[in-house]
């Protein structure tokens, strides 16, 4: 029997740093203006004379180089600090707040530079997957538990899911959920080796889509039973499951993906016809978009609500996308719009779903957020800012 959530779990504080900037107002304004910041990253490490696009973080004057340990922690700590300030947490609330950390690359970016001149660095020196969350705890004087999710592109979405559930159950009062993935050659070259990286522009759901363009970023939210902000978003529920079709792709018919969406809706106590819009995972790969659209049609039948994808604004930030896209989507709605799927031009009759081609004016609603990843991971979240 599905048990439904009892508590509203509010986004009490949030902060993001992504290719569009590091202040939420700036990021939302850029989304409204349909701006992007993409760079070509050379593949000279592989002795190739071409590059591939990537949504890099703009590096500010005076900041450490983007491949340094100092930069890694500066971005992480500054983003978490902003979320804590935004949430107006007291010192006691900070101290007792558990950390839910989700990432695909975890600490790989910290080790890569050393590999240029050394071997087996990771197995000689890695402190383990849980270390980054512990570093956050040490830096901010947090004495509560640390939970690190490494479920590929659903990592930080799973962090949101479990933090919400534990708050709802009364096991914890509040939680800091962080999604963080910085550029790594491992991820960049790995995606290129899979022939998944597309040339610009990024075109999720488009008939002429050619794949993924990666991005980097950090998102942090403080989830709590209460919020000082009127009209704040709250997480209603979520679900997670495994699609065992293949380690790299999901069942193209969308059965497993549909089951996860339906599970999330059931736990939120929301019927499909009450969903005002869907933030799709929308990676732009042929298989992912096809699978997701088939799943959406199974859940919503002929009444699919407005659908959009956000990755063409900030790139596919892999494990961090759970929190980053939660912030981008909810802040855009609070600003009165759901962004169009940037780059989309030509409908694909095979998908049978046309995403938003123009921004949709909407300031409140109940929304379904989808996240899927390698290793069969599927996660869906239901959020709302309706009273």
């Amino acid at each position, binding site marked *: 029997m599905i048990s439904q959530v009892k508590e509203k779990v509010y986004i009490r504080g949030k902060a993001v740093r992504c290719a569009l900037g590091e202040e939420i107002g700036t990021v939302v304004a850029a989304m409204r203006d349909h701006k992007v910041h993409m760079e070509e990253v050379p593949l000279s490490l*592989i002795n190739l004379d071409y590059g591939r696009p990537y949504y890099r973080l703009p590096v500010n004057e005076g900041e450490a180089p983007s491949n340094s340990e100092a930069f890694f922690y500066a971005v992480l700590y500054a983003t978490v600090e902003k979320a804590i300030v935004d949430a107006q947490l007291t010192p006691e609330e900070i101290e007792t707040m558990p950390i839910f950390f989700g990432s695909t690359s975890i600490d790989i970016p910290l080790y890569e530079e050393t590999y240029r001149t050394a071997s087996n660095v990771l*197995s000689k020196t890695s402190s383990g997957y849980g270390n980054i969350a512990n570093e956050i705890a040490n830096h901010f004087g947090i004495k509560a538990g640390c939970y690190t999710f490494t479920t590929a592109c659903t990592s930080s979405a799973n962090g949101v899911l479990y933090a919400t559930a534990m708050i709802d159950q009364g096991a914890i009062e509040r939680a800091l959920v962080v999604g963080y993935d910085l550029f790594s050659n491992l991820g960049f070259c*790995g995606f290129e080796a899979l022939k998944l990286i597309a040339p610009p522009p990024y075109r999720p759901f488009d008939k002429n889509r050619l794949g993924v363009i990666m991005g980097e970023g950090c998102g942090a939210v403080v989830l709590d039973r209460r919020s000082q902000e009127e009209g704040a978003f709250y997480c209603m529920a979520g679900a997670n499951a495994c699609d065992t079709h293949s*380690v790299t792709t999901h069942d193209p018919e969308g059965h497993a993906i549909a089951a996860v969406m339906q599970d999330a809706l059931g736990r939120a106590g929301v019927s499909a016809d009450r969903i005002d819009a869907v933030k799709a995972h929308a990676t732009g790969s042929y298989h992912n978009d096809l699978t997701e659209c088939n799943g959406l049609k199974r859940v919503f039948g002929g009444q699919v609500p407005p659908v959009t994808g956000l990755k063409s604004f900030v790139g596919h930030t892999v494990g961090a996308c759970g929190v980053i896209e939660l912030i981008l989507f909810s802040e855009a709605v609070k600003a009165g719009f759901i962004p169009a799927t940037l780059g989309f031009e030509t409908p694909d009759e095979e998908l049978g779903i046309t995403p938003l081609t123009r921004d949709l004016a909407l300031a409140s609603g109940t929304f379904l957020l989808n996240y899927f990843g390698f290793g069969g991971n599927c996660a869906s979240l239901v959020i709302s800012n309706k009273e």
Partner: protein
Amino acid sequence: MTTGNPNMHIHNYGSFVGHPVEEMKYYKEDVSRYTRLHFRRANRFVLLSLAGACRCAHEQGIGKKTAVYLTTENGNLGDTETVLHQIFHMHQFPMPYNFINTMSNTASFYVAQSLELLGRNVTFSSKLLSFERGLELTSCDMEMGAVEEALIGGVDEASFSKEQFEAKFDRNYDDYTMVEGSCWLLIRQRAEGALGRVSAVASFAEIGNAVAWLKNESFDRPVKVAHGILMTPEDKATIGRALPDATPFDAISEKGYFDSAAACAATTFLERFNSATLIHINKDTRGHYALLRIEKY
């Protein structure tokens, strides 16, 4: 935080612990005893995960909605090293399946695929407390009705680096036998047919709070006390005073050390004892304590 879900009944356990064997064929042959799937591209971490999980699920008639929680400290070290070597030293793209396998959740995927499980699937870590925190997630999912049946395991490759081990733990590497392992529990909400129960998972910022918690517990079976690697002699003495009638149980000496030692202590206790209670106290590098209470009927 204390998780006292009364419905975490242990129906089986399975473990695969030993000295690393270089030849992957050894692992593939072992796993092939439990599954007909061929894991041509599987690596050591994946095969280790399968060896423990498949033993645990073997002939248990587990349902398709069974959840998988794979807890690990380090995940897939081998393929990650291979891929970084390919990129930085050979200046080549990684082999696609080497790259895919750097994401450790591929191991929990293969566990689900081999056992045909479509339920929740989480690869999870929490520095030195991964297994205990993973049990918190299991409890959370069971409490919300998302999971009725779950496989939860601790999986880690062996630590070969003396330098890393001694820096991480401030312990003498040569005092330990290094092994690799994959130790799993099959947990159901249903009590009928259970061989034991996870009766509590609790975490404390200070040992005094752990002692206070222990003093409020009552025990109707003999208590075995096991400790994590970072527990100091003073910590152990403090716990010993709180549980004066308990008997020490040193799973690390018995089985060897790998980073999922708490999971190994749980399965070794279930294997070794009947009608007993395990109290396992673990400590992380922040000085936090996690306490696990397991009953064996």
